[in-house]
């Protein structure tokens, strides 16, 4: 698998506080990587490190194959766009003038792409309105537009939906999906709004106390968390035979417990099992959300 970003045992501390503590993560090319963690877990620090705003005290990261110690890392950085915490924009300039400024910073020869970028983020009709008069969602979209000015391959978004109203959240979500699907931009999106992240991410990295505690693809996570019926029986082999006959998907967890991923007709299942001399001790419907998965990872008691 090709990776856009790989970090290895990355550390960053502020005085005595270790914000990032041996963090290793891998962001695959083309992914929407959901970076999940509570406040202060180290999400923003990691993004600052990757963007070159801060230097790690130890460890390393590779961005598009170039190590952070390589002088040429700035060339890899030219392939990224980022919105770190608040969008970087001139409040007294219009959306178009903000983009013109970004074009100048990037040294782009003409302002030709500005209209298209404004259209992409849905700000084509704001005219000469200054950025300081924009709503939070509009500012966030303008921040993403500015990040898109250099036609990046990798977008880092730090809490892009924080403080947005439901409409704003939907707009940002659709924008990120559009950028990923239509422009094949890899996106790293940090958030603690897990339900929203679940609608976007193709991969997840769970961070706690400055360390990645789990990296998982959305497909694997779905497999782990999908709705199932926990059946506790005396003979799992008999249960497997019956489920095969009924054409149901299942997974045997241990000698007594099986997870059935289908709608179960309880009476029929019990009667079939009874014919196989198999006792049914309990049937429990379970569904694990991204949130409960995260809590189970980081320890529920600490985050209650």
């Amino acid at each position: 698998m090709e990776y856009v970003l790989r970090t290895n045992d990355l550390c960053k501390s502020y005085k005595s506080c270790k914000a990032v503590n041996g963090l290793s993560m891998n962001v695959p090319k083309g992914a929407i990587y959901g970076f999940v963690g509570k406040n202060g877990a180290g999400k923003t620090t990691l993004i600052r490190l990757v963007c070159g705003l801060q230097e790690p005290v130890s460890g390393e990261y590779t961005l598009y194959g170039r190590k952070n110690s390589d002088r040429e890392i700035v060339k890899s950085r030219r392939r990224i766009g980022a919105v770190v915490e608040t969008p970087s924009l001139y409040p007294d300039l219009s959306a178009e003038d903000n983009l013109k400024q970004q074009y100048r910073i990037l040294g782009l020869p003409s302002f030709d792409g500005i209209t298209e970028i404004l259209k992409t983020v849905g700000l084509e009709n704001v005219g000469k309105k200054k950025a300081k008069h924009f709503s939070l969602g509009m500012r966030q979209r303008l921040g993403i537009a500015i990040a898109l000015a250099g036609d990046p391959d990798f977008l880092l978004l730090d809490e892009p939906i924080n403080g947005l109203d439901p409409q704003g959240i939907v707009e940002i979500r659709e924008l990120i999906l559009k950028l990923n699907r239509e422009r094949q931009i890899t996106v790293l999106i940090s958030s603690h709004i897990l339900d929203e992240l679940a609608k976007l991410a193709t991969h997840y990295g769970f961070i706690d106390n400055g360390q990645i505690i789990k990296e998982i693809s959305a497909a694997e996570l779905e497999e782990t968390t999908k709705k199932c019926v926990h059946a506790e029986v005396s003979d799992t082999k008999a249960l497997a035979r019956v489920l095969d006959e009924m054409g149901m998907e299942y997974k045997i967890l241990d000698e007594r417990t099986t997870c059935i991923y289908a709608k179960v007709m309880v009476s029929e299942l019990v009667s079939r099992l009874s014919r196989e001399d198999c006792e049914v001790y309990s049937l429990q419907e379970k569904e694990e959300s991204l949130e409960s998965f995260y809590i189970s990872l980081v320890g529920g008691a600490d985050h209650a």
Partner: protein
Amino acid sequence: MRKLLSANFARLWKFGFFWICMGFMLGYSLVYMLNGCRQALALPEISFTLDQFYFHSALSVGAFCACLTSMFLSAEYGDGIVRNKIVTGALRRDIYLSNLVLVFTATLLLLGVWWISALAAVPVLGVWKLRFSELLIYLLVSVLFTAAFSAFFTLVSMLCENNSAAGIVSLILFCGLLLLAALIDNSLSQPETISGYSVIIDGIQTVKPQSRPNPHYIHGQWRVILQYVLDFLPTGQGLQMWLLEIADTGQVIRMMLSSVLITVVTTICGIRFFQKKDMK
């Protein structure tokens, strides 16, 4: 670097505070010079010259530079523009230098506004009494200490992300340096002797004036050191220029070298610190 300069200057032309400073400098210059004209017309027995008023800008340009630098660069920090430039792959050294060039140019433009608008007093005060070469030297010294001010305040603003803190620190530093220069200049201006008093009764002088040494007069090595310090400080240079106290070629060279030294050292230090700085 070129693209950063292009972005910086495009920004400067739309930066409201810069135009406020330009307008204020214009008004300040006109009011100050017209007041000089008023004095010259009111007191025809005293010979007022354009030179006495023309270089007043040397004293105030540092304050304008401090305000403009902190406002412009702090806004760049506060709005996340510096962060944005780093993310796009710009070198920190280039970001620092492009900001320094911008601040220096903007302050020179302010100085230029003074120099041009101050010519409004020419019809009353006439032209400079300084020789052309002296005038050029004065202007060159002004340009160089403007560079020193720009480098100094760029250092402060680039290392201090907080908008108001950068402004306050810059102004306090400017006031402190100006006060220091004024104190040194005052000490060096003390006469070597104090004239005694004479008593005249019925037109007959009964006590003859006897001059005695001034205890506050600074002698020897200390006097040389203080003069060097005064020539070294940009505020000291400005003060001496305003008072038309620049005496000889050696002093001019000392002043110019001091400004170049301050500019180079503060810029090297600033770039070093900025490269190590953790940005939020």
